[in-house]
C-alpha cells in the first residue's frame, strides 16, 4: 500500500507568486494514498530538504512527490535527499510546476493554480507504480586498445600508459610510425619528421605498460564500455621476434626484391624486410607473397606443378639466432579491454583516377608523398631529388593542388586541409635542395588557417621565389622530355602553359582502406567518405555514439600533425578518466523484458539503436529477447514497437504513462 507524501515548493514567489500553494495543498491532501501534503518556502534549501527527511521518517512514507522546479533542475538533489532516509531514491517523482506552470501562466493565478493541481495529480498517479530500482555496478577492464600506430595512436598510447594503465597497440603494418614516418620535414617549422617521431616510437616500443602488436589486425569486437572483448589476428611473420635481434643480416642478403610500398614504388625492398631503417619493432617479417622458399613450399604442396622455384632459405642459413620459423602461422588472439581508441589515420588519394593528368602513367608526375620520399635522406635516393624516369635533376617543378580534393566529379568534394601547406613546404625545400629549381604552384585558393601558416606561405613566395598560379590545370601531357601543364591564370584571365621537368600532385586525404569495416565492427558510425563520425562535432570530438569507443586523428577527417597529437591526447584523457573509476554505475531506468509475454518476434532487436537487445532460447525452446543492461540507454524505442507489450521501461512503464493520462480525467 503506497503511503505518499507530497511537498509543494513556493520557490520564494517564483511559484507561490502565481500558484495558490495553500489551495493546492488542500486539494492534494484529499487524494487517495496521499498521507501527507505540505508546502515549504525553498524545498531545495538545506532546511527544506531536512523537513522532507523528517516527514518521510515520521509518516514512514514509501513514495515521495515534490512539486517544484523542473526535474532537469533538482531531480538528482532530491533523489539524494530521499535516499538519505533509507528509502529507495527511485520512489520519487517531481511535478514541474515552475518552468511549465507558474512561470508561463503568471497572467492568470486561477488557471495556473488549477494546472498546478493537475500536474501534481499526474505525478501522484505515476509515483504509485514506482518500484525500488538499483543501479548495477560493472567492473572495468583497465586496459585500452589502440587501433593504429601512427602519430595519433602513439600519442594516445603513451598518454594512457603514463597515466598508469595497460595499453595494447595494434598496427597492421610491420612497424609503427604511420604516414608521419614517410615524411621528410614538417610544416611550418621544417623540423625533421623522423627526428621528432622516432623517439616517441622507441618510447612506445619500450614502455612497460604498452604491448605492441604489429603486423596484426582487429577482426571482431564485442561487449560494451568497460568490458570489450577483441579478436586480433596476428599475421604470420615467419620470424620469431623473441629470438630475433634485428641485426639485419637477413634483409641485407635476401635475393628476392620488390618495389617498396613504404617508398611508394620509388625504391626496392627485400622479401624479408623492415619497412624503414628506424622501424619499431626493429625486427623483420617475411613477405610470404614473394619469398622464394615459401613459393617452393607451395610448389611442393600443390603437387609440383610448373617450374621449380629455388629453395633459397638464405635468411635462415645466415640468421645468427635461428629466428626464422617457417612453420609460424597466423593466429587469432582474444584480449579484454575497457576502452577502444580508433586511430587508423589516412591514406593519400590515388591520382591514377585523374586520366587528364596522365592517369598515373607518367613516371615524372608524382604525388606529394612520393616527393617526401625523394627528399628524405633515408629515402630511396638518399635525399637526392631526381626524375624517376631518367634520374635527371629537375629544374622546373610544377605543383598541382586539390588533386582528389574539392572535386565532386572525383567523389572527393571536401578540402583536405594540409595540401596547401605541404605544397608550400615542398617548394621551399626544393629551393634548399637546389637553388636553381623554379617552382610553379597551381592552386584554387591558398588556405593557411593555422599558427604561422600564412607566414610560411609568404615565405614560399618571398624566399623560394615560387610563382603561384590561381587556376586548376586541365591537362598534363608529355612533350619530349618535358611535361606540359595546361592551366589558366585566373588573376590575369588568360590560359597558361608550363613546361616542367617534374610535376607534383598535391593528393588529398582519404580514410585508410578498411576504415568502414572497422567502424562496423565497433558499431561506430562513419560518413559517406568512410571518415569516422564524432558523437558531437564540437562538444564531443573524440567520443563516438558507442560508449567506450573513441576516435582520434585523421580517421575522423583531414588533420595535420599537431591536431592529430592533440586529439590523440584528448582521447587518452577520456580513456584515463574512464579508467579512474573502478566500476561503472549503470542507470537502472532501462528496458526489461517480460519473458512470459515475449513472442520472440525480435522487432526490438532490429529497432534498438544500441544493439542492446539480443535473444536467447528458453528451456521450452522459445525465442525471447534479452536486454543487455550495460548497453541499454533507456530510450524506449523497443516498447513502442513491441506488439505483445512484453518489454517495458523502468521508471516510464506503459502503465505509469497511461495512469498519468488517466489522472487528467479523474
Amino acid at each position, binding site marked *: 500500500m503506497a503511503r505518499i507524501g507530497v511537498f509543494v515548493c513556493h520557490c520564494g514567489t517564483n511559484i507561490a507568486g502565481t500558484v495558490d500553494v495553500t489551495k493546492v495543498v488542500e486539494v492534494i491532501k484529499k487524494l487517495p494514498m496521499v498521507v501527507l501534503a505540505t508546502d515549504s518556502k525553498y524545498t531545495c534549501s538545506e532546511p527544506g530538504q531536512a523537513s522532507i527527511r523528517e516527514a518521510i521518517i515520521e509518516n514512514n512514507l514509501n513514495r515521495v512527490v515534490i512539486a517544484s522546479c523542473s526535474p532537469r533542475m533538482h531531480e538528482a538533489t532530491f533523489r539524494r535527499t530521499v535516499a538519505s532516509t533509507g528509502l529507495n531514491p527511485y520512489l520519487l517523482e517531481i511535478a514541474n510546476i515552475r518552468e511549465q506552470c507558474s512561470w508561463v501562466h503568471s497572467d492568470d493565478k486561477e488557471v495556473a493554480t488549477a494546472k498546478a493541481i493537475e500536474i501534481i495529480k499526474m505525478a501522484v498517479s505515476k509515483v504509485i507504480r514506482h518500484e525500488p530500482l538499483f543501479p548495477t555496478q560493472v567492473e572495468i577492464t583497465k586496459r585500452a586498445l589502440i587501433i593504429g600506430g601512427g602519430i595519433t595512436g602513439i600519442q594516445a598510447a603513451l598518454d594512457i600508459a603514463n597515466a598508469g594503465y595497460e595499453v595494447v597497440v595494434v598496427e597492421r603494418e610491420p612497424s609503427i610510425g604511420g604516414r608521419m614516418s614517410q615524411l621528410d620535414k614538417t610544416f611550418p617549422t621544417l623540423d625533421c619528421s623522423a627526428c621528432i617521431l622516432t623517439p616517441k616510437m622507441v618510447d612506445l616500443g619500450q614502455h612497460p605498460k604498452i604491448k605492441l602488436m604489429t603486423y596484426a589486425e582487429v577482426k571482431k569486437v564485442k561487449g560494451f564500455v568497460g568490458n570489450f572483448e577483441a579478436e586480433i589476428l596476428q599475421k604470420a611473420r615467419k620470424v620469431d621476434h623473441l629470438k630475433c635481434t634485428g641485426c639485419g643480416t637477413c634483409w641485407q642478403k635476401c635475393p628476392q626484391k620488390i618495389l617498396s610500398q613504404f617508398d611508394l614504388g620509388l625504391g626496392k625492398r627485400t622479401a624479408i624486410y623492415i619497412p624503414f631503417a628506424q622501424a619499431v619493432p626493429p625486427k623483420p617479417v617475411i613477405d610470404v607473397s614473394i619469398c622464394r622458399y615459401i613459393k617452393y613450399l607451395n610448389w611442393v604442396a600443390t603437387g609440383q606443378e610448373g617450374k621449380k622455384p629455388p629453395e633459397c632459405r638464405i635468411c635462415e642459413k645466415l640468421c645468427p639466432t635461428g629466428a626464422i620459423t617457417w612453420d609460424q602461422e597466423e593466429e587469432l588472439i582474444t584480449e579484454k579491454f575497457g576502452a577502444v581508441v580508433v586511430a587508423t589515420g589516412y591514406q593519400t588519394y590515388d591520382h591514377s583516377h585523374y*586520366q587528364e593528368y*596522365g592517369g598515373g602513367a607518367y613516371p615524372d608526375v608524382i604525388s606529394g608523398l612520393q616527393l617526401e620520399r625523394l627528399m628524405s635522406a633515408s629515402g630511396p635516393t638518399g635525399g637526392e631529388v631526381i626524375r624517376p624516369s631518367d634520374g635527371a635533376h629537375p629544374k622546373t617543378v610544377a605543383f598541382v593542388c586539390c588533386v582528389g580534393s574539392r572535386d565532386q566529379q572525383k567523389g572527393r568534394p571536401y578540402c583536405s586541409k594540409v595540401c596547401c601547406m605541404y605544397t608550400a613546404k615542398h617548394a621551399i625545400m626544393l629551393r634548399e635542395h637546389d637553388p636553381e629549381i623554379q617552382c610553379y604552384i597551381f592552386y584554387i585558393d591558398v588556405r593557411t588557417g593555422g599558427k604561422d601558416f600564412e607566414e610560411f606561405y609568404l615565405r614560399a613566395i618571398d624566399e623560394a621565389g615560387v610563382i603561384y598560379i590561381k587556376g586548376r590545370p586541365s*591537362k598534363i*601531357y608529355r*612533350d*619530349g622530355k618535358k611535361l606540359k601543364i595546361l592551366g589558366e591564370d585566373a588573376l590575369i584571365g588568360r590560359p597558361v602553359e608550363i613546361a616542367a621537368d617534374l610535376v607534383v600532385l598535391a593528393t588529398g586525404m582519404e580514410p585508410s582502406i578498411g576504415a568502414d569495416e572497422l567502424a562496423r565492427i565497433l558499431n561506430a558510425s562513419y560518413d559517406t567518405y568512410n571518415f569516422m563520425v564524432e558523437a558531437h562535432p564540437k562538444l564531443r570530438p573524440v567520443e563516438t555514439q558507442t560508449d567506450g569507443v573513441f576516435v582520434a586523428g585523421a580517421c575522423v577527417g583531414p588533420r595535420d600533425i599537431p591536431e592529430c597529437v592533440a586529439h590523440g591526447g584528448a582521447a587518452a584523457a577520456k580513456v584515463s578518466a574512464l579508467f579512474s573509476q573502478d566500476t561503472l554505475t549503470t542507470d537502472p531506468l532501462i528496458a526489461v523484458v517480460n519473458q512470459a509475454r515475449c513472442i520472440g518476434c525480435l522487432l526490438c532487436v532490429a529497432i534498438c539503436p544500441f544493439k542492446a537487445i539480443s535473444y536467447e532460447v528458453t528451456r521450452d525452446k522459445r525465442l525471447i529477447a534479452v536486454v543487455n543492461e550495460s548497453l541499454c540507454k533507456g530510450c524506449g524505442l523497443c516498447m513502442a514497437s513491441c506488439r505483445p507489450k512484453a518489454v517495458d521501461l523502468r521508471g516510464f512503464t506503459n502503465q505509469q504513462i497511461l495512469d498519468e493520462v488517466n489522472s487528467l480525467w479523474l
Partner: protein
Amino acid sequence: MKKSRYAYYPGCTLKTSAKEYDISARLVCKALGIELEELKDWTCCGAASAHSIDQLLGIALPALELQAAAKLELPLVAACALCFSRLKFAAHELKEEKVRNLIGEVMGKEISQDHHYEVVHLLQLLDENTDKMKIEKPLHGLKVACYYGCLLVRPKEVTNFDDVENPQTMDRIIQVLGAENVGWDFKTECCGGSHMLVRPDIVVKLSHRLLAQAQQAGADCLAVACPVCHSNLDSMQKTIAAKYKDNIHLPVFYFTQLAGLALGLPPKQLLLDKHFIDPLPLLMNKGLM
C-alpha cells in the same frame, strides 16, 4: 547482343568530301557480313550549325532520322562523329516528355515514347565484330596514332562511348589489324572541328598540335573516325606544315580504310588516292602494298 543488320546514316560529307570513308565502311561491313541499310532519302542532321543557333532545329533534324530508323526497327549506325553526336543528343533529349511534345509539334507528328532509339558508331560496330575479321594482310610495322576527337566520347552521359580521356575502342581494332597503336596524350583533344571555314587560323593551330604530338609519339600515320577531323588533319596538313615550318608528314586514314587493307581488300577500292597526304609511299616501304 550482336546484330548483323543496321540502318546506316552516312551524313552529308560522306557523299562528297569523305567519299572514301563511306565506300571503305560499306566494303568492310560487307566483308564482315554486316548488312548496312542506308536510310532512304536521309537528310542533314544539322551539325554543327543547327544546335548552335536553333535548339528545336538541333533536335528535330536528327529526330527525323531516328524515326526513320525506328520505322525499320533497326539500330542506327552513324559514320560521322558529328552526326553520331547529334543523333545521340536527340535520342537523349527525346527521353523527356516535354521535349517529345515540342518536337512532335515541330515535325507535325506524334513522337511515341516507347521507342528507345539505339544509335551506335561504326567504331563500336567493328569493335564488336573483330572476331569475324579474317586478317589477310596484317598491318605489321605500321605505327598508328588513333585519334577519336571530341564528339565520340563527350559528353559521356550522352554518347556513353568509352573512357573520355583515354578511349581504347579504335586502339583495340588497330591491334587486331596487326598494326601498332602508339600511346599518345591527344586522343580526345579537339582538331578545330567545324571552324574550318570561319576560323581556319584556329583549325591550323589545333590540328598542328595534334599532328606534332602524334609524330612525337612515334606514329607514322593517324587513324580517324570523323570526316571533319580528317579534312582538318589531312587537307590542311600542307598549310600547317608550311605555317609552322616543321616537316610534319603524316598520312591520315579512316580506320575503315586500314581495316579494308588488313582484310585484303584492293587498295584502289578503298580510295586511298583521295587523300591530300598520299599514304601509298608509307604503305609501300612498310611492305604493306
